[in-house]
């Protein structure tokens, strides 16, 4: 029983971060129709930046987001403006291929700079534990959970109550009408993409403590994010967060009850079952 609760808790904790990752992807898809297959590699980039900042300035990852977030957002804006925006209107798969090329560039850029050996970035809270009844939780996971949920709520509020959020939803619902309102659609798309990358920078810091990092780790996050975003119906806020929890929990159960390698089978399996029998995914309420 303890094992069951342990797996469940672990899954929920990490699932909220998966949801956050997917929200970023869903926002970008909603306004520009782009699915960024280098998504996970940006997370890896964020993690390696934290590593570099730690080596150079002894900054704890939670602190270095002050630097990594603006830098990554800047990079994201440039990437969208010059690589992705020219591609809007062309075949979806072609845009995906471009992001795959970007993925190669990021992965191997990191490899060239940092080498291929797994590295760890120490953090002040890395080994602290929080014990609740029979369940042992690692403090970094709890922090990740809280921050992810807070950010998700923040995003929701932004979308509902700010002009920027409303322009994002307007562009998603009818880009032509949005431009007739005087909304600069291209600018909204660029800013949304940058926002998505900024979210990834924060998520990178959240996921970093205790995780050995390698240049090729991005792919795993890309696949997980894709599973979550599709489960969430691509742009449905609640659906995506739910999807994150579902994937998180099934991954936790998979790795604890099966093995590390077979662990991914369970999320895949649950994904397949849900999408087969509920093609609209876990959507709930209106889309954004």
């Amino acid at each position, binding site marked *: 029983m303890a094992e069951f609760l342990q797996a469940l808790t672990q899954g929920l904790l990490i699932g909220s971060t998966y949801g956050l990752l997917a929200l970023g992807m869903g926002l970008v898809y909603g306004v520009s129709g782009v699915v960024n297959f280098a998504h996970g590699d940006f997370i890896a980039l964020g993690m390696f930046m934290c590593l570099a900042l730690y080596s150079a300035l002894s900054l704890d990852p939670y602190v270095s987001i002050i630097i990594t977030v603006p830098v990554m957002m800047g990079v994201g804006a440039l990437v969208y403006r010059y690589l992705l925006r020219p591609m809007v209107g062309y075949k979806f798969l072609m845009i995906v291929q471009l992001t795959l090329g970007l993925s190669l560039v990021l992965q191997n850029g990191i490899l060239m700079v940092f080498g291929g050996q797994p590295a760890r970035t120490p953090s002040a809270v890395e080994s602290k534990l929080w014990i609740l009844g029979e369940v042992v939780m690692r403090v970094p996971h709890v922090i990740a959970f809280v921050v992810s949920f807070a950010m998700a709520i923040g995003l929701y509020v932004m979308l509902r109550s700010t*002009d920027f959020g409303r322009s994002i939803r307007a562009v998603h619902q*009818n880009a032509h009408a*949005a431009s*007739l309102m005087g909304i600069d659609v291209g600018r909204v798309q660029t800013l949304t993409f940058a926002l998505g990358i900024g979210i990834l920078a924060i998520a990178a810091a959240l996921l970093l403590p205790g995780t050995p990092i390698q240049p090729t780790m991005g792919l795993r996050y890309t696949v997980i994010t894709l599973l979550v975003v599709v489960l969430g119906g691509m742009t449905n806020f609640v659906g995506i967060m739910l999807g994150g929890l579902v994937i998180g929990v099934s991954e936790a159960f998979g790795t604890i009850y099966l093995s590390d390698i077979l662990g991914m089978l369970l999320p895949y399996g649950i994904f397949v079952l849900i999408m087969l029998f509920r093609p609209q995914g876990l959507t709930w309420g209106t889309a*954004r």
Partner: protein
Amino acid sequence: MLEIEHLVTGYGGVPVLQDVSLTLAAGEIVGLLGANNAGKTTLINSLSGVYAPMSGRILFEGTDVTALTPRARVELGIVQVPEGRLVFPEMSVRENLLLGGINRRARSNRARQMEHVLELFPRMKERLSQNAGTLSGGEQQMLAIGRALMAEARILMLDEPSLGLSPLFVQYIFGIIDKLHAEGLTILLVEQNLNLTLRHAQRCYVLERGRVAIEGPADAIKNDPRTRSAYLGL
């Protein structure tokens, strides 16, 4: 106030408007008529900056605005109520209106503009938190016009406002158009409905296959036999 000089516009290399010139004086209602595919919507979209013209100029109050982005045109006050309303279906009436006033010039005045628009369309006041997609066609038209007014329009361009509306609603909407005209708003009215337009507009242009076939005061056009042939493609 608005002058279009020899505009040639199209897409994919194919011109849809072939040498169109028209003028709009401040405070006028000008009607733009023509059969389907005559180029009416293309003209309105060119005015909104959606299409970059192949040649020709657009002058707004004497300044050349041909190269301006759609956003810049809205900032100047050139606002369109698009064909088919195009309200944001999953946003509330209130959010749609707020979005109408999102451009920099209008943003500071939004609260007051909203009051004004809701006075004009009391029905919208009842439906403020309802999703625009669930409104009826006539209500959506009201919302679309209200949304455009939120932008502090100085020229209001309406593309087929009577499309798909019941006669009662059409009467109501055109009553609003008259009221706005009385308040001094310059209006460009695109309509397929010949008689309706001739009743409310002061001057009209009839487009045929991308060119201005006939122009003049509404009465003259009503009696011009060429008008009917332009419509029927004879």
